[in-house]
């Protein structure tokens, strides 16, 4: 399985295929997130974060929904209080290799 880095500090995880399915370009997504590059990505997933607190994350969720992306099916937030010595990685469940 191919893992990418994610952050529990108000992170966002986007399913890459959803962009094509909803007609959303990567450039548009990056503009919404106000970043030049995502936190990490592979051919299945794109992760963003940390976000600027819960309020900013809520606004980003609204903005992504406004693009036509479906919350939970297409993207989801990753939030939790963990010490800095913990790191997290996520893989796409459909990847079995």
């Amino acid at each position, binding site marked *: 399985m191919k893992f990418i880095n994610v952050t529990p*500090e*108000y992170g966002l995880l986007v399913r890459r295929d959803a962009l094509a399915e909803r007609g959303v370009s990567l450039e548009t997504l990056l503009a*919404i*997130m*106000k*970043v030049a590059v995502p936190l990490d990505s592979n051919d299945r997933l794109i992760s*963003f*974060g*940390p*976000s*600027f*607190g*819960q*309020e*900013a*994350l*809520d*606004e*980003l969720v609204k*903005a992504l929904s406004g693009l036509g992306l479906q919350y939970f099916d297409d993207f989801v937030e990753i939030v939790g209080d963990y010490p800095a010595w913990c790191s997290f990685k996520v893989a796409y469940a459909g990847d079995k290799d």
Partner: protein
Amino acid sequence: MIACSDGAIGGAASAIVAPMVRDGLYDKSDTTTTTQNSDGSATQTTSYENPFYNALVTGASMLAGGSLAGAAGQNSMGGLTTAENEALNNALSAKQKQLLAHAFSFEAQPAGSITQSDAANTLAALKLAQNDPSLTSTERGYFTSATLSVYQAGIQAGALSANNVGALVSAAIGSMAFSGGGSVQLPGGASQSNVLPTTSGSRTSVAIGNATNTPSGSYTIYPLGSGASTGPLPPGYTMVTRWVSPDEASQWLANQGTAIPSGIGAGGRVYVTTPGAPQPGGTGPVQINFAMPQSAISQAGNAQWGQIFQPVTSTPIYNTTIVVPKGITIPGH
């Protein structure tokens, strides 16, 4: 029962108030000369030669008398109301009218909403405006009336006192002053529109109506007046920036930028950046700059971000400015 005419009430009040106001304003800056008499005795003479202070002393005496007379059923503000109407309908410049309108608005403000800084800054702006040599005596009178209006409202609100107004106005003028002279282009190319003429070869920028234009397609609001937006910080304080929605900016204005409003920050966390850091995604367009104790800020997200844990409403903040992009309105402002 002891009867006393309105005139007697006013005269008595004036006699009491005038020396208090005079001494408070001059604060030992008056001129004292000692003349030796032929019989060996000495006569000490104190001169009060500051026309601005003298106008305040006279006006304060009149207003003190008027206030008591007003309590007895007379309209103590009648003269000022006439002056307001005249001033706001005459040939003064738009900036001068704006300043006068702001000054006269103090009368209508609830006592609790009048701040010491705004009152002092407005008095300072009025004082400088009166230095315009092109003013007629009548127009100069409008500024005197406006000055008295702000002074009385400030006194009644407890924001000013006869003992501190002189020092506050002087400090406000000092905070407005630039060295050199003349109007110049700001770095962004925009002209500095809020320049009033001054004497003594110095150029002075004056905040009119608590807002000035900035050169970057935005305007700046000073919740406590421009004089309170700069200056030395208490030990341990550092400047930070928070990006917010217009609605949240309205809450900061409501408490005059003296503390982080209660309820701000989801989950009790108020996110801030270092000054000049890029605007984070998901944040609002309004930029609030303020000084906060460094010890109250925890690292967040990246090296340029910090978080402040609520409640911190009892922690004073300083040098607060609110930068609003043009075209965006802050509710209630």
